[in-house]
């Protein structure tokens, strides 16, 4: 018995000991078919797997290979990482697991209690880990960052990014850049002042911090009336991207606080609802672009900053594209931050387009009022945070959208530390439910190529593959494959729980797999042997 136990330990250790990931591995992640090494698969956040064994002609035949039931209730929004026969997934409420890629059996389980007095706005999800060497990096709800041993799940170091008692929390998947772990933060619904951090991957020591709301004496502080900057929000709860040649990190920021009441914070409220480009070594701001100045509709701009080299108006551009929650698709020059163009992709009634300077042309009377103002899109967007994908095979960019309007009620509210600081709330329009869609656009023009309608606002992210497929999920529990060229549905399965995460794909032992969270479980699919 003892001998079998020891052999078992040795086998597990041997399996996990292989999980060495270097910086070069991360730079070449797009060419590594057998791994999924970061949130967006590559530093450009394409979320595209070149694998083509599963394609438009045979996807109808894929079957579940294994299912891992986490047993943890809550929103499962993880992007699994895959390396050397092991899958690393995170769950809500501070859980993480290492799973045997062959069988789905649990190799280790990490968990950390969530403090009872922690305030949070939107559940306790977690969007995944980052990996470097033999360490995984994971944020916890109480605004901490932990380094875990890939072989055991044991904590190597743990640091506090901010005091959760002040309203901070964290859900983001970290991003490894060089020898640093870059993370965001959440809390803008509680009057926090937010930031982007970089930590030494070996020690956990904080290397730099970029405040997304500038303090006194810093450029941009003048865009906040009085001392409103102290409670300015601008959370950073979705993973950014990175251009190694320019050595710039791109990260989207969230709404200013209070969300729906602009009166306490006159001005543009930089750098809320913005894209910021930071020097990866120092965290210094190189450029910014603000999508929604002085936002009063909670239109976070945290969605994936996707890096595409493409021709725009006859000129080659190193571009950055984002489907923004305010209802517009944007293209920027990622070297300079220059605004290239923007196109509405859903019903918009608050702006009459985006001007040549990149600022929205506001339609008066769309601000929240005590009695309520009908505004489109609704609070969740437009495209909210869900992972997007760019397929170099089709040349199309894919994202989802919540479509429809809401009634925005605003009211003045004093700040109380640790309590909601929203400035009122939204309500739905009776008889007009919000719906959704999956949209494919030409990223160089914003022209829509196809739209797949959804009966509900979307819940999952997207994955494109070399097999010409687009994988997506729905809040009603369907995991499905669409033809990436046309949007035609080719396969679906009712999983029994909402699909709230983006799928991934990898090759293992010569066979292509597609994996996605659904409900409280991880489902893995492949063609029959």
């Amino acid at each position, binding site marked *: 018995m003892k001998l079998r136990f020891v052999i078992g330990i040795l086998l597990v250790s041997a399996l996990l000991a292989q999980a060495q990931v270097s910086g070069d591995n991360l730079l070449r992640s797009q060419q590594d078919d057998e791994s999924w090494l970061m949130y967006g698969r590559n530093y450009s956040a394409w979320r595209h797997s070149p694998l083509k064994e599963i394609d438009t002609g045979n996807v109808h035949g894929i079957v579940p290979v294994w299912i891992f039931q986490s047993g943890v209730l809550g929103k499962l929004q993880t992007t699994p990482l895959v390396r050397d026969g092991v899958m690393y997934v995170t769950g809500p409420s501070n859980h993480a697991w290492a799973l045997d890629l062959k069988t789905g059996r649990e190799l280790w389980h990490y968990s950390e209690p969530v403090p009872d007095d922690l305030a949070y706005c939107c559940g306790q999800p977690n969007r995944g880990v980052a990996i470097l060497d033999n360490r995984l990096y994971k944020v916890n709800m109480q605004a901490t960052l932990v380094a875990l041993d890939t072989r055991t799940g044991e904590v190597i170091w743990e640091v506090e990014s901010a005091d959760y008692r002040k309203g901070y929390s964290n859900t983001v998947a970290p991003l490894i850049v060089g020898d640093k772990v870059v993370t965001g933060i959440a809390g803008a619904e509680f009057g926090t002042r937010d930031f982007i951090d970089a930590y030494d991957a070996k020690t956990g020591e904080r290397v730099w911090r970029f405040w997304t709301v500038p303090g006194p004496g810093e450029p941009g502080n003048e865009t906040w009336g009085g001392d409103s900057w102290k409670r300015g929000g601008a959370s950073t709860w979705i993973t950014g991207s990175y251009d190694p040649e320019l050595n710039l990190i791109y990260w989207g920021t969230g709404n200013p606080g209070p969300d729906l009441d602009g009166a306490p914070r006159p001005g543009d409220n930089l750098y809320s609802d913005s894209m910021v480009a930071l020097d990866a070594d120092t965290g210094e701001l190189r450029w910014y672009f603000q999508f929604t100045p002085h936002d009063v509709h909670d239109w976070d701009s945290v969605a994936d900053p996707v890096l595409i080299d493409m021709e725009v108006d006859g000129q080659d551009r190193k571009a950055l594209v984002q489907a923004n929650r305010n209802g517009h698709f944007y293209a920027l020059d990622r070297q300079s931050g220059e605004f290239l163009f923007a196109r509405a992709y859903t019903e918009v009634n608050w702006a009459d387009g985006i001007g040549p300077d990149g600022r929205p042309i506001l339609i008066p009377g769309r601000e929240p009022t005590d009695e309520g103002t009908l505004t489109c899109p609704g609070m969740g967007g437009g495209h909210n945070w869900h992972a997007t994908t760019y397929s170099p095979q089709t040349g199309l960019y894919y994202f989802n959208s919540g479509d429809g309007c809401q009634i925005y009620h605003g*009211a003045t509210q*004093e700040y*109380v530390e640790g309590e909601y600081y929203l*400035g*009122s709330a939204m309500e739905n329009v009776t*008889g007009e439910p919000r719906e959704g869609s999956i949209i494919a656009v030409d990223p160089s023009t914003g022209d829509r190529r196809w739209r797949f309608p959804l009966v509900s606002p979307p819940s999952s992210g997207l994955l494109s593959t070399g097999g010409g497929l687009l994988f997506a999920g729905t809040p009603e529990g*369907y995991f499905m494959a669409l033809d990436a060229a046309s949007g035609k*549905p080719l396969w679906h399965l009712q999983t029994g729980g909402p699909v709230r995460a983006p799928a991934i794909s990898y090759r293992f032992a010569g066979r292509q797999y597609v994996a996605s969270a659904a409900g409280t479980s991880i489902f893995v699919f492949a063609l029959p042997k």
Partner: protein
Amino acid sequence: MRWEILCLLAAFAAAAAGQELQSSPYHGDPVSIGVGKATFRLRCSACHGIHADGGQGPALNRGEFAAGDTDLAIYQVIANGVPGTEMPAFGGRSTEENIWRVVAFLRSFAPGDDEPLQGDAERGAAVFWDQAGCGGCHRVGQRGGMFGPALTRIGRSRSVAYLRDALLEPGKDLPPDYFVVSVETADGRTIRGIGLGYDDFSAQLVDSTGRIHSYHRGEVESMEREFATLMPDTYGDSLTTEQQEDLLAYMQSLRGEVGAP
């Protein structure tokens, strides 16, 4: 101002020492009431209305509360919910302090007169079961039809004003998750009923006979969801004003008692 802060601190110190608060320590404090209002709008307004004037849940801006008019009673309803109704417990989702702020907000409304009931509940029962035929679709306890929403406890969960709207303008508001599905089958039939499920690939519905239907999109000609009601909108004409008032009085009397008429 300092005195008020001292009072607040003393009240919470007492609570921390094990003496449960009997009333909100935030009465008259505009900052706390503002936070309570904001919390109310975030957590409560979907059912009780953005101005606390009622909707799917009772109106709370009249200074009268079904579970009792004391601060403590309101606090306990918020913290623990009301079993057997749609009112959930918020005790695990909000701090004690913030629930007391919501209580202070709700008590900040000037007490007003609830709409007086003019009808007779006994006569209303006859309207419900005989003259108007409401029981053909709605059930009370074990009696009545299965097609419409159960009304066994409707008097506890809806105001008179809401019920009057529901009777005379039945589409004005809809219960949560209520919708109608219409399906045109491949052989040309139209099936219409209350939706049980509706998604990107299928729909499930129950027809007026209680039969459940399930369809994949690919096997039917068309499939549509309507956010409308199948309840007739003719009761304003077919019932006299007296019958309407009697019917409302009957519905207000339905509090969930077993064996209700």
